């Protein structure tokens, strides 16, 4: 059974010699089960191609983008307070904000990042290594889900 499948996979992938292809084609004409198995392999191959074409999971990029924006906005939001409390830092905060913005632009491509005026609430977020999802972050609510186990 495994040999049949390997032979059909090799035939489908174009790995057989001319003589090998001729023998498989003759076998397929005589054996409907083999033809069905080949059809199944074709269907599986198309499914895998579709999955590959979809790229990474759609929820990854928004999460990454959120963190980039949070780094940017945190530096912007905290810079004035640090200035008044510690008497220093506009230049440093500006440099950090500019670096974060440049990094964000490099990684974001043409898609605009959420700015400080975006309705979302998250400015900085860390889950201490636990898996975490930002399920929602808009003007209505911010929902952060950390499906950790209770100790």
């Amino acid at each position, binding site marked *: 059974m495994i040999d049949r499948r390997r032979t059909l996979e090799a035939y489908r992938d174009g790995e057989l010699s001319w003589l090998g292809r001729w023998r498989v084609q003759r076998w397929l004409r005589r054996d409907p089960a083999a033809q069905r198995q080949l059809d199944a392999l074709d269907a599986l191959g198309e499914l895998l191609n579709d999955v590959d074409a979809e790229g990474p999971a759609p929820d990854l990029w928004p999460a990454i983008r959120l963190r980039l924006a949070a780094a940017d906005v945190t530096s912007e939001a905290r810079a004035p307070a640090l200035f008044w409390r510690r008497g220093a830092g506009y230049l440093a905060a500006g440099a950090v904000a500019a670096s974060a913005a440049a990094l964000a632009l490099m990684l974001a491509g043409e898609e605009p990042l959420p700015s400080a005026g975006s309705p979302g609430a998250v400015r900085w977020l860390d889950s201490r290594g636990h898996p975490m999802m930002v399920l929602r972050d808009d003007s209505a609510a911010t*929902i952060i889900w950390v499906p950790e186990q*209770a*100790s």
Partner: protein
Amino acid sequence: MRWGRKLAAALCGLALAGAAGAEESTNGDTVSIEVTILEVSDQPGEADPRCERFDKILRGQIPYESLAVLDSHRREVALNEVWTLQLPTARTLQLRPLEVSSQGTLLSLDVEESVQGDFRVHRGQPLVVGGPRYGEGRLVVVVDTE
């Protein structure tokens, strides 16, 4: 020259007084924070009218059958003051308002051994943190500011 020095000294004095006044008014600001602790469960439960608002927020975001309010706290918290609450999971929740402006309240949140972060929240824009197992379901903390 003397007048110049006096004028400079007066301006410095005014500037210092202004800065001190600004700092004082900032420290005097407080933020009203309400923390509601919920349990979401896969088990069906009785409809709790207190949960209506939370149900609207959470429905469709996480799977659950019932929602129950376990506890609720409200406090006026001064800027930069840390409000520490004990959660039913025996962990602590710490909240610290950092700044209040027309853009909302910059709030720092820290759940012990879990998530921490800074959030710019507005009135009517709750901050919801949930996930840990508790009882038959999972614990959800809702933070509202005014």
